């Protein structure tokens, strides 16, 4: 099927299946799935700038579905989400400007490919280490660590001491996040974390949930289930801004995004519902292969010259 905006020829079934898989992942892990959607669109022949912008549009629509489901489960900290929006939007614009600069220099595909490989590998490696350490410390008979969490909403990580230090940073204004169980944390810390996530959003595409969800858990100390729901809520606004920015720069094929979302809608419902049955460390361990899949697709496109 021909898509006239991007001049791409892509089978709609491919887009629906990709959308469904990403919908399940998004609903379950709170990520937009750009580490798969971006490379998948690149694999279908889209230039990186068009893949980045189109992915953002699709993620915005998919996140509406998933966030509604997580809201029903009580997994959204709205106060945190609204604060993060400000940092994410600023970061997304910075990232989008970076893409434009690369487009002018003519090497956007190579640079974005290599940056995404490094980022995806780093995230997977760190989360594998943390989830392994946390599960090891809390299994029955473990000599160290506190008893396992009694329910799926409370959470522990292996870098809790780092999180505690970050929360103790006294950079006024300080706020409390009672929904997330945080007594005091600096607004600047939240804005900094969300700004970095926004840069990745605007530069690599998507909502950058693969950066933001782990950042919320490890740096801010948000329980995993709340990080998932809050991230999805925040993505609706930040991805919407980034979509508009990229659309004005000619980097969005909305027809492709609309087709992908038909599969994503079902997948997001299924993924969000499934989070009720897993604890935080288990979800984080299950997350580890995902960025590696995206990394593999990007490497494939670099080696073979990209098109399926």
């Amino acid at each position, binding site marked *: *099927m021909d898509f*006239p*905006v991007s001049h791409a020829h892509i089978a*709609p079934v491919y887009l*629906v299946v990709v959308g469904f898989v990403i919908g399940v992942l998004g609903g379950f892990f709170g990520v937009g799935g750009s580490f798969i959607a971006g490379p998948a669109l690149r694999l279908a022949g889209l230039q990186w700038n068009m893949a980045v912008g189109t992915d953002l*549009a*699709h993620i*915005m*629509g*998919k*996140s*509406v*579905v998933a966030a*509604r489901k997580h809201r029903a489960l009580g997994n959204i900290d709205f106060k945190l989400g609204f604060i993060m929006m400000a940092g994410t939007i600023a970061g997304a614009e910075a990232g989008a400007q970076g893409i434009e600069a690369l487009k002018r220099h003519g090497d956007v595909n190579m640079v974005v490919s290599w940056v995404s490989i490094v980022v995806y590998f780093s995230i997977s490696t760190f989360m594998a280490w943390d989830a392994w350490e946390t599960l090891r410390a809390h299994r029955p008979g473990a000599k160290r660590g506190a008893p396992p969490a009694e329910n799926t909403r409370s959470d522990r990580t292996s870098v809790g001491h780092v999180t505690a230090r970050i929360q103790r940073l006294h950079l006024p204004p300080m706020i409390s996040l009672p929904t997330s169980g945080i007594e005091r944390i600096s607004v600047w810390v939240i804005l900094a974390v969300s700004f970095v996530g926004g840069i990745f959003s605007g530069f690599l595409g998507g909502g950058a949930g693969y950066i933001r969800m782990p950042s919320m858990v490890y740096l801010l100390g948000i329980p995993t289930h709340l990080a998932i729901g809050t991230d999805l809520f925040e993505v609706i606004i930040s991805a*919407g801004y980034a*979509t*508009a*920015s990229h*659309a*004005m*720069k*000619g980097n*969005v094929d*909305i*027809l492709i*995004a*609309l*087709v992908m*979302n*038909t599969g994503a*809608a*079902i997948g997001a*419902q299924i993924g969000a519902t499934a989070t009720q049955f897993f604890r935080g460390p288990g979800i984080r361990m299950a997350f580890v292969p995902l960025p590696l899949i995206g990394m593999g697709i990007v490497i494939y496109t670099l080696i073979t010259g990209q098109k399926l």
Partner: protein
Amino acid sequence: MIEIPVYAGIIVAYYYLVLSLLGSWVTHLFETDRRLYAAACLGMILAQGILLDLTTTLLLRAVRKRMR
């Protein structure tokens, strides 16, 4: 299960509507007015997200009822 063919039918009709009827309008906007194109992108993706959420929620409720 009847729900899957119903959803598949809705999707096929939707493809026709989106790609056939909106395709040339969207392309024209893309080529002539990027701001309006950006606004149209946001409107369409939001509207579709809400519409699909309602559709899939009803569909999954029907599936769960049948499984019971």
